[in-house]
């Protein structure tokens, strides 16, 4: 791994020391140091939940840090909101364009700073100033046109124009490229270089490796809320970057019994995908899932991990290929159909797509079972209580109180409740999309052990995780995805972290931008 940067440099413009941010039940950021120098493009890298957004929000005053300090140009500062940060010269452009589509382009750039004459906004001067700013960035759009009439890419550039209109010294770009195509990314990069050469410090968040090497001077990598390191992009190899992002777990994880792949898999796979694919989501792939086996999905964010899992569950419709269940063709029209056939899917976004956080542990657990029975046949209270008690004990959910409201539980325990919900329906195939994200090490080890036990009892498990070590540790087979293609399938017994890393990192030559 590259040596952390220590070379003597001018004073950093922004210097974060020991930043910690806590949310109920989660430590989103742990004592992170971060430096940003004038005239550099600094990439901030990390998987989902690594703490990138939290770091930015702590810097711009959206989140109050529980520890740590920020210095700007040598002077300690603390912001209570983005407006204050902006006044100090720190502008942020978010992933979702935060502008008002109902107003004109010029207004969106200058809102709050409109040129005025005798107290009234001077429309002509405002449009002229907006046109000048857009011109500096090489854009020729009509400043009087409504922003809502422009495509996302233009809106993104307008957002940047707004950010630099305040004479920003620090420009934060939070995943600005996720909805742009290649030409648009080039355009954005050209503008970033212009700004950098003007001495602006640019903090650039992305999950596309190509773009990091194309535009950034230095890289800071976060993982699980901690800083892994700060590197010189020129002296960093692709594989070093990937392993910093998803490679070795820093803390020691409790050892999960390593299962060898010597069990006899049934001759017919439980679920077989043949040439299954969906345009823009995942290229056609073949995959067999056997009963009693844990199959791991490895790949970077945006490699098609979740998309693949959603196809198997029927949450998205496949364009090509077919699915066979027990050797018989299966058409999944909806998640409901999948559930009826014993396929369960635990979503990566447990808050938005999984749990009803205002309900109790019991209600959340029974939800899927009740749905499977239909609303007319209520689950008897006693059955429900027994099931809930069983799984609270088995998964060691704390507090062990079926009437606790889920919102009050920690992240790890919420995840266990979600898992229990699906286990109660006794699925034959359990798809887990990032079940361990954002939960602490102890809860992780527990979940991994439960997953291993379930497979031993004959359940087929598809395990998706951003953490490579975890995937390697508990999987019998590992499927490697890269740029929305399945690139390899490894037997878990032989696969090491290094081998998978190699597969993930190698051969990415063009930034494939997805989502279209």
């Amino acid at each position, binding site marked *: 791994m590259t040596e952390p940067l220590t070379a003597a440099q001018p004073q950093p413009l922004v210097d974060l020391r020991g930043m910690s941010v806590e949310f109920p039940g989660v430590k989103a950021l742990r004592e992170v140091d971060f430096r940003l120098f004038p005239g550099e493009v600094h990439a901030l890298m990390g998987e989902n939940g690594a703490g990138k957004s939290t770091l930015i929000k702590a810097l711009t005053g959206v989140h109050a840090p529980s520890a740590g300090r920020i210095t700007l140009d040598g002077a300690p500062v603390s912001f209570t909101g983005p407006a204050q940060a902006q006044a100090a010269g720190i502008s942020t452009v978010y992933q979702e364009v935060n502008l008002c589509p*109902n107003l004109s382009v010029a207004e969106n750039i200058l*809102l*709050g700073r*409109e040129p005025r004459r005798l107290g009234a906004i001077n429309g002509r001067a405002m449009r002229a100033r907006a046109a000048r700013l857009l011109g500096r960035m090489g854009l020729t759009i009509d400043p009087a046109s409504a922003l*809502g009439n422009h495509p996302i890419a233009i809106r993104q550039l307008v957002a940047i124009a707004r950010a630099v209109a305040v004479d920003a010294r620090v420009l934060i770009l939070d995943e600005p490229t996720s909805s742009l195509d290649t030409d648009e990314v080039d355009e954005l990069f050209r503008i970033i270089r212009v700004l950098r050469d003007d001495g602006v410090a640019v903090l650039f968040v992305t999950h596309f490796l190509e773009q990091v090497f194309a535009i950034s001077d230095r890289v800071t990598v976060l993982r699980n809320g901690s800083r892994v390191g700060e590197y010189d992009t020129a002296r960093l190899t692709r594989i070093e970057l990937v392993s910093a992002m998803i490679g070795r777990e820093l803390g020691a994880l409790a050892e999960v019994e390593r299962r060898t792949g010597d069990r006899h898999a049934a001759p017919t796979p439980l679920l077989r995908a043949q040439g299954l694919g969906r345009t823009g989501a995942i290229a056609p792939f073949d995959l067999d899932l056997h009963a009693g086996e844990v199959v791991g999905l490895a790949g970077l964010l945006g490699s098609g991990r979740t998309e693949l899992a959603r196809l198997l569950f029927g949450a998205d419709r496949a364009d090509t290929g077919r699915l066979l269940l027990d050797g018989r063709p299966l058409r999944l029209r909806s998640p409901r159909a999948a559930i009826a056939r014993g396929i369960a899917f635990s979503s990566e976004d447990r808050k938005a797509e999984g749990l009803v956080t205002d309900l109790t542990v019991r209600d959340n657990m029974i939800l899927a079972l009740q749905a499977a029975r239909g609303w007319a046949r209520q689950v008897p209270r006693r059955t429900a209580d027994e099931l809930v008690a069983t799984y609270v004990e088995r998964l060691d959910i704390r507090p062990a109180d079926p009437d606790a409201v889920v919102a009050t539980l920690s992240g790890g325990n919420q995840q266990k409740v979600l898992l229990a919900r699906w286990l109660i329906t006794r699925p034959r195939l359990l798809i887990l999309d990032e079940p361990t994200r954002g939960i602490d090490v102890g809860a992780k080890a527990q979940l991994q052990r439960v997953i291993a036990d379930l497979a031993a009892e004959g359940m087929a498990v598809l395990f998706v995780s951003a953490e490579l070590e975890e995937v390697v540790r508990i999987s019998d087979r590992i499927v490697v995805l890269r740029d929305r293609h399945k690139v390899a399938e490894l037997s878990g017994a032989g696969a090491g972290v290094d081998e998978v890393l190699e597969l993930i990192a190698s051969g990415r030559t063009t930034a494939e931008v997805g989502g279209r």
Partner: protein
Amino acid sequence: MTALAVPRVPSRFLPVIATFVVFVLTFGAGSVRYEGFASGQIVANLFIDNAFLVVLAVGMTFVILTGGIDLSVGAVVALATMIAAATLRAGWPAWLTILAVLGTGSVLGLGMGLMIHKLRVQPFIATLAGMFLARGLCFVISEESLSIKDPVFRAVATETIELPGEVTITYSVLIALAVVGIAAYVLHLTRFGRSVYAVGGSESSATLMGLATGRVKVGVYVISGFCSALGGLLFSFYMLSGYSLHAVGLELDAIAAVVVGGTLLSGGVGYVVGSVVGVLVLGTVQTIISFEGTLSSWWTKIVIGVLLLAFIALQRLIVHRQRDL
């Protein structure tokens, strides 16, 4: 991609134009059907009879532009008439009465705005509470109707201004038009006004842009409260009495006028001028029905209901078209 020239679609003006067309059509229909309908005085009467509603609709436009709603305006109008009648009866000079009424309306608006902003209460609930409060206060003052005999009020109410063409209007019309002019200026040429549109377009964006969204959200309810009180004064000029049951349901007329005038209930899009035309449409429908003579005045409500539906459907269409772009 920089060469992407987007034609300037006047779709944001479309609802206002549509409202104006509806106004011209209904007025034209009235002119064809009834003799003496197409006169300048009938148009002037639209303003005279609805001056208070114009002022209410202006305040309501501010609120709806931010994506909120104000259900208290009818009750505040009644309270304004009660305060005016009661204080004048107690011998207050007219100017002090006017100040008290306007102050009460603004304070009520401030209270509701703070409730909505600081306590994050739904505007619907907060202003519903304000509505009950204001209506209740009316009955505290008096359960009877109180007539207004103050010479100043009487003078303002009865004196008229000659316009060329033997058309006369009242002072109320001038006040209402002044309010419209000031509102248009504030909305289009001040930072506060543009922030109102920004908050309606996307409140979270406006906050991230560093705009004072809190001040805007509270401010629009103060404006609406002030306009309700002023509307109440105009209403008391019109009725020359204060009564607890004045202006029941008037808030709904104001909302209808704003919506028919092309302002999106979701906020961010609309013009005060549209709301004025909306009031005129409502007024024209009412005038036609009174000309008809045999029809129950409830037909006004039916026609307004149909118009509301049509305009909301039109807004949906426009919003959809913009999304498809």
